[in-house]
């Protein structure tokens, strides 16, 4: 259904341009503006969304005409991808594919093609994955969940994520795979690959009845998408387990509220109910964790977070930010290892789950 709708929406754009030409009107596109001046904070979803401002790409403007032509070319290209159902294309690939479009349409640098993709996303209010443009696959999912998807040959495949070695990589097909069955009651998203592997080896998924997700640093959009779907479709609470520093917290917050850069599709990616589990600033004190000194950049980031409308009313966060600032120190997830391999699953996580009233710990 989404697929057909996407194709129709793309066709409509093409038709409007043809109609303009037919009427000897200068063809133009109206696109939601993506600049910061058009960012609006959506209190209900507590994330940034685009406001009502639009920009016009006019065929009568010398500075617009190239982008207009490229927009239409990329849109037509993507429409064929959607209809073909077989292929996904990374942004980098699209940039190179454009080499074959001739000197007037090809992109000279990748930011140019990225920009057009974002314009199309904004026009459709859909993430680029819907038009088969994907980020580099990053992140993995592990645990007792069964997924159903079609492979590029069009064959239906079913897989349980426990039947993988290190988890199922989250690419375009995984992100949109159908959830067939799971007995998990929560999702733990982990910042570093090291801690993700630790939890698998310490059998955390069984112990906490959880699905484990490796974010691999800042989460890719596919990863954010699957987290949102797990939360929305399966009603699983999501716990964000990151480093104890403002950047770790920011990683958590992007999953929760979306990023400014993807404001035009935040509604499709953000998981507002997700909860920041830690490692918190208080944890540093409580567990006497090994720390590093904060850099100027960290301090600056904390001050930004203190004033961010998304976090202003979150008392727990604000308290932690103040503690960090007072400490001037930060710590990594792995610092918990000072108490041995099992400490995380036997002591640290259970305490957190109790604190956050997680399923099975109420």
């Amino acid at each position, binding site marked *: 259904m989404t697929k057909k709708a996407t194709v129709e929406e*793309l*066709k409509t754009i093409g*038709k409007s341009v*043809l109609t303009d*030409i037919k009427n000897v*009107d200068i*063809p133009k596109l109206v696109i939601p503006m993506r600049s910061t001046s058009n960012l609006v904070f959506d209190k209900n979803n507590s994330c940034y969304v685009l406001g009502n401002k639009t920009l016009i790409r006019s*065929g009568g403007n010398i500075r617009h005409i190239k982008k207009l032509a490229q927009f*239409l070319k990329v849109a037509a290209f993507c429409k064929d991808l959607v209809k073909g159902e077989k292929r996904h294309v990374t942004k980098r690939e699209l940039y190179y594919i454009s080499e074959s479009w001739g000197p007037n349409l090809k992109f000279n640098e990748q930011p140019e093609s990225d920009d057009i993709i974002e314009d199309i996303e904004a026009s459709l209010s859909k993430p680029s994955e819907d038009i088969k443009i994907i980020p580099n696959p990053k992140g993995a999912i592990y645990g007792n969940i069964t997924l159903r998807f079609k492979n590029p040959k069009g064959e239906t495949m079913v897989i349980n994520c426990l039947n993988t070695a290190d988890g199922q990589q989250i690419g375009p097909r995984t992100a949109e795979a159908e959830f067939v069955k799971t007995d998990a009651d929560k999702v733990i998203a982990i910042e570093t690959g090291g801690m993700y592997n630790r939890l698998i080896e310490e059998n955390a998924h069984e112990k906490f009845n959880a699905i484990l997700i490796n974010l691999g640093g800042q989460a890719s959009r596919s990863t954010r998408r699957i987290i949102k779907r797990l939360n929305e479709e399966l009603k699983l609470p999501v716990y964000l387990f990151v480093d104890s520093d403002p950047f770790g917290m920011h990683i958590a917050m992007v999953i929760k509220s979306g990023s400014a850069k993807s404001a035009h599709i935040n509604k499709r990616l953000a998981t507002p109910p997700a909860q920041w589990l830690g490692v918190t600033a208080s944890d540093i004190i409580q567990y006497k964790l090994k720390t590093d000194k904060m850099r100027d950049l960290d301090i600056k980031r904390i001050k930004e977070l203190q004033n961010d409308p998304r976090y202003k009313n979150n008392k727990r966060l604000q308290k932690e930010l103040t503690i960090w600032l007072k400490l001037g120190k930060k710590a990594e997830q792995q610092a918990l290892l000072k108490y041995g391999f099992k400490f995380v699953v036997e002591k640290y996580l259970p305490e957190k789950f109790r604190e956050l009233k997680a399923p099975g710990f109420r």
Partner: protein
Amino acid sequence: MNEEKNAEYFAKQQKEISVSEFFEKNKHLLGFDNPTKALLMIVKEGVDNSLDACEEAGILPNIEVKLKNIKNNIFRVSVKDNGPGIVKNQIPKIFGKLLYGSKFHRLRQSRGQQGIGISAAVLYAQLTTGNPIKIWSRTSKKSKVHYFELFIDSTKNEPEVVKEESIEIKKFPAGHGTLIELDVSGRYRKSQGVKEYLKETAIANPFAKIVFHAPDGEKMVFSRSVDRLPKQPKEINPHPHGIELGVLIRMLKNTKAKTVASFLKNEFSSVGTKSANEICKLAKIKKTLSPKKFTRADVENLLRGMQQVNVQRPPLDCLSPIGSKELKKSLEKHYPDAETIVTLTREPSVYRGNPFQIEVGIVYGVGKKESQIKIMRFANRVPLLYQAGAGAVVEAVKNIGWKRYGLQQSGNNLPTGPMVLVVHMASSWVPFISESKEAISTYPDIIKEIKLAVQTCARDLKIFINKKQKAKREEKRLHIFENYFPLILESASQLAEEEPNDLKAPMELLLKKIGKKIGEENDKKSNS
């Protein structure tokens, strides 16, 4: 070398001759410093004489120049005109006597001021080849052609006629004219010298037709672009501010005036009784003093008085410029591919008591874009081909900020661009940097006038360049639209899954609409 051998031979034979010896030793001063230039000087003297003769007689000049390479570095130079011809008994004096003629003593705009005289050419010919000059001249259809072969007897500075006869010969279709033939040592170069000189002469004398037969068989015809002769320049007396000591001494010696006051009144311009008395007062000389009784100190005092006195500027109607319209026509003829031509004749002005007038022509769109502009200098319609980097013209051009006028310029160098700049100075007395008379002295008054004239033309040029750039910009913009519209149509059709068959015509209309819009935007931009 033949030239040296002959010169030495002559020197040995005639140890006492001052004129020939002077000439031999000072060849470079007179412009004979290398074989290429020597050949040019011979042609130049012949052509200048022909132009002068035709102009004075009110005849539109037809001039034919032939160069024939008779052996190695020996050339036979012939110059034929349709002038009034020369009276039989004048011919030997004109060609066989150095410093003969009226030009030297008078003050008026003339070509001859810059040359060495045709007789010097005769002397050069006999020094380098030993051959006499041959002259054919006819004054009217009724008379026969006078034919002369003559040398210069350099001891006496008198003509030595070798052959003289009156003959029936069909050399002058107009019934009158003069033909001279000289054998000289020299070198012909295609790219510079004679050819360039004749071309530039034709530019500055658009009323003349000049035909050139080059030694390599090439024939060039510079046809008339104007069918009217310029008005004849008037002679004027020197102005008290423009006089030099030597000239003043000579004038005092030759004058018939009885008193210094009448000498001043009669032989200088802008001096009346009142001014004459004023000069005497300033010089502390009795106004009744006879010019014959002047001591050296008296002359110096008089000169100072003349320089200090406040008198009117000299009369300015003694000048005969090419004319702005005529120069333009001429340049249009010589540069048919030029994109634009701007010309200007300034009002006459005065430097050091000498009237002068500056004319400028700008030819744009010829030559290489990335090389320096070509400057063509003229003094009293005569091209100045040497010392291109020196003098008032180059000085003035370098001191103009050319970027303002749409040309490239680095520092105070000559600007670069596809342009020829013509500068003509007409004056009763053109001041030259040196005796070879190839660059105009850098007097501030002259530089100022040149600068003003060039800048005025450059402003018109700028307007043209702006328009051109505007048109280019519009074309470039429209071209972008023309490139993209088919692509937009193609992608939109692919996107909409519709055939674009019937959209060709609306698209043409659309492009026209946009072209119009671009023009309007451009106008707005250049108006604001």
